[in-house]
């Protein structure tokens, strides 16, 4: 009897890490999950303990393998998908992180970013790396650590400390850590630093210099889909065969392999990615350019991305910050206690606004408050904020690509919310479709890992695994949609120019970008 083999995926996310095991038909056979602590040491700061994350992932791999009754030899490969941009710097000899990891949502680099933008504008690096200057990306976070940690720059220049996003940190630890661990990143993660040249797919020396980052601390840039090495810890012999940023992994998991195919993942933040094929396409409407994936030995595939910072985390804030619900899904129950938003809009510009606005000085607002508003209306406004923010990036994408989106493929934790999914279909005026496996980030990582070792022959085999699990059709009156969208846009205007820069506080106000 030929014994069945499986593929494993780790999804190292913003709020939790997961490990899933899939069979040859892409069906989930085991899952284990663990949350990690969020540190908010100051307003605008968000940190993770990289050691805690590594320990969690190590346990999850063991648990998932045990639940499925598998040993390393039963698993063809491990694919890692991870929260992007979150920055770890560690000591290559001891493996100890230098302070906590700076999370993608963290805005501590605002001043630094403004300073960099002063010479040449927020888009000065865009043609090289595809990104506007923003606190979101890893480069400024590395620079901040180098500036603020005594002696760190010297250590970096001497090659004593290493930088990595989460996949780099995990692969280094899995493959031996201080004892010969491989220091690598994949093109999708590397592209989120502002240091990667989109054309050469290698570190761009001019960008590193402008950002003030010693190249010795940077990992080697590799394709997303290739054998990185064998685990020496946790599950010795397990081959690590793919790494992708979580959003690119979701695009892959949704089998958006052809130009023009798009998906949006609804988690802590939400991210709409559109496959643009082998061409690098630059946006004129506030989207960013990013590699979608690169199979070892092949040319990369690119994507346009609309990044929305705050969607699920607004629900989390509603739960933890305001205490109006006790679990995230209850937001739907609460929202259904009322008919509509009662005229109330919430724009969650908690870390400024990302796509398509890119305004780091914006801050959140709740507008339209009257004594009529109840917590039910607020709950609706929370869910609607995700709908309208999606509408904004879809509009940008339609304008950039010249072709209107015809359906939206969705995934992520928020897709269990039917009120939200219906609202999305309503405001986008296109069908919204959820695939059979909602954990597309993990599916994508697994597909990539399996593809690397020939477990799946090609992309077409994977495409056949995609099935529709749910569908929501638009049903909103067009005039009503129009009016509500206008109200939303007026609400967005009220978030802008809120945080003043030091030189603005007394004098006139200038637009911070450009």
């Amino acid at each position, binding site marked *: 009897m030929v014994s069945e083999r499986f593929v494993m995926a780790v999804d190292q996310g913003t709020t939790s890490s997961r490990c899933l095991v899939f069979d040859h*038909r*892409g*069906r*989930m*056979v085991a*899952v284990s999950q663990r949350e990690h602590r969020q540190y908010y040491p100051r307003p605008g700061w968000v940190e993770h303990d990289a050691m805690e994350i590594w320990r969690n992932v190590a346990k999850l791999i063991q648990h998932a393998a045990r639940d499925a009754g598998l040993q390393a030899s039963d698993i063809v490969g491990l694919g890692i998908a991870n929260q992007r941009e979150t920055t770890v710097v560690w000591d290559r000899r001891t493996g100890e992180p230098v302070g906590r990891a700076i999370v993608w949502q963290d805005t501590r680099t605002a001043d630094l970013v403004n300073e960099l933008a002063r010479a040449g504008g927020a888009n000065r690096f865009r043609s090289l790396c595809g990104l506007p200057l923003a606190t979101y990306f890893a480069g400024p976070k590395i620079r901040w650590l180098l500036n603020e940690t005594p002696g760190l720059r010297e250590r970096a220049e001497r090659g004593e400390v290493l930088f990595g996003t989460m996949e780099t940190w995990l692969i280094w630890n899995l493959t031996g850590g201080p004892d010969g661990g491989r220091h690598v990143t994949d093109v999708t993660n590397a592209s989120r630093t502002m240091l990667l040249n989109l054309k050469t797919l290698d570190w761009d020396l001019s960008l590193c210099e402008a950002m003030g980052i010693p190249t010795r601390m940077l990992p080697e840039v590799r394709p997303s889909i290739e054998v990185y090495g064998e685990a020496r810890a946790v599950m010795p012999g397990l081959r690590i065969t793919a790494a992708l940023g979580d959003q690119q992994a979701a695009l892959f998991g949704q089998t958006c392999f052809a130009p023009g195919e798009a998906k949006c993942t609804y988690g802590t933040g939400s991210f709409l990615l559109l496959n643009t094929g082998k061409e690098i396409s630059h946006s004129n409407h506030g989207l960013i350019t990013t590699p979608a994936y690169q199979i070892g030995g092949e040319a990369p595939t690119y994507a346009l991305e609309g990044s929305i910072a705050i969607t699920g985390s607004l629900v989390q804030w509603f739960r933890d910050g305001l205490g109006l619900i006790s*679990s*995230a*899904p*209850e*937001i*739907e*129950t609460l929202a259904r206690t009322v008919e509509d938003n009662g005229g109330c809009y919430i724009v969650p510009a908690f870390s400024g606004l990302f796509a398509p606005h890119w305004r780091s000085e914006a801050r959140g607002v709740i507008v339209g408050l009257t004594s009529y508003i109840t917590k039910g209306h607020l709950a609706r406004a929370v869910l609607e904020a995700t709908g309208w923010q999606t509408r904004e990036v879809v509009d940008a994408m339609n304008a950039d690509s010249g072709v209107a989106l015809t359906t939206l493929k969705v995934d992520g*934790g928020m897709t*269990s*919310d*039917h009120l939200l999914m219906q609202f999305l279909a309503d405001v986008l005026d296109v069908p919204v479709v959820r695939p*059979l*496996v*909602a*954990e597309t980030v993990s599916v994508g990582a697994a597909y990539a890992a399996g593809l690397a070792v020939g477990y799946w022959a090609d992309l077409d085999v994977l495409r056949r695994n995609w*099935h*529709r*699990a*749910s*569908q*929501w059709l638009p049903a909103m009156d067009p005039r009503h949609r129009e009016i509500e969208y206008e109200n939303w846009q007026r609400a967005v205007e009220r978030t802008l120019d809120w945080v003043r820069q030091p030189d603005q506080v007394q004098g006139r106000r200038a637009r911070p970008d450009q």
Partner: protein
Amino acid sequence: MYRAAVPGPVQSIERAAAILRLLAARSGRLGLVEISASLDLAKGTVHGILRTLQSVGFVEQDPTSGKYQLGAALLHLGSSYLDVNELRARALNWSDALAARTGEAVRVGTSMDSRVLIVHHVFRPDESLQTLEVGNLLPAHACALGKVLLAYGPAPTRAQASQPLEGFTRVTVVDRRALTQELGRVREQGWSQEVEEWQPGEAAVAAPIRAYGGLAVGAIEVRGAVERLCDYHRQPKTEHVTRVREAARAISRELGAARW
């Protein structure tokens, strides 16, 4: 230090929980003697606990027979015990996996006003045109989900038990006694079936989703054409039964592990 701060289990609460579970597991009413015998406890002890449970509304005593059953307060607690949207969120992964493994549609339901409310629906993965049935209400006695919820839920009130059972096809169970018997079988085997009792040509198999303490808070089913779901004796195929029960257990584990 850690240990000293956490008190050990409270015996009377453990016993109260056992009594509630016993009452929840048997749909009929139970007398004091039966309860104390089942749990191997002194009658006096059981009586004291029952009185307390009665005072908080978790248990009711039938005035004529003197027998006990789960109380209305507990039922109410049951409906707010687990938010339906939370149930869907927790069921998401395993419902998907079940649909993928069986190739059939999957639905999750919970009781609402003695009917079944569909809270989650995964399309049959064959790309055919299907519409979401979330929010639909179904008659409990005519469907697999409903039979599980009836079997593991609270005993029907007298008013409910005197309502006639509506027939939807030639084989819908409309006789109370037959239904009671079938619910007994459901409890014994741990799953329910529906073969053309609601829609001609359709069959379904369902199993209970349990939360903390074993309370059945919902049910999950696979549903499809009779010829695919059943063998030639018109009995659900074992593989479907096994898979539904596995999915139900996986979701139950997830709910039990929740922070309550």
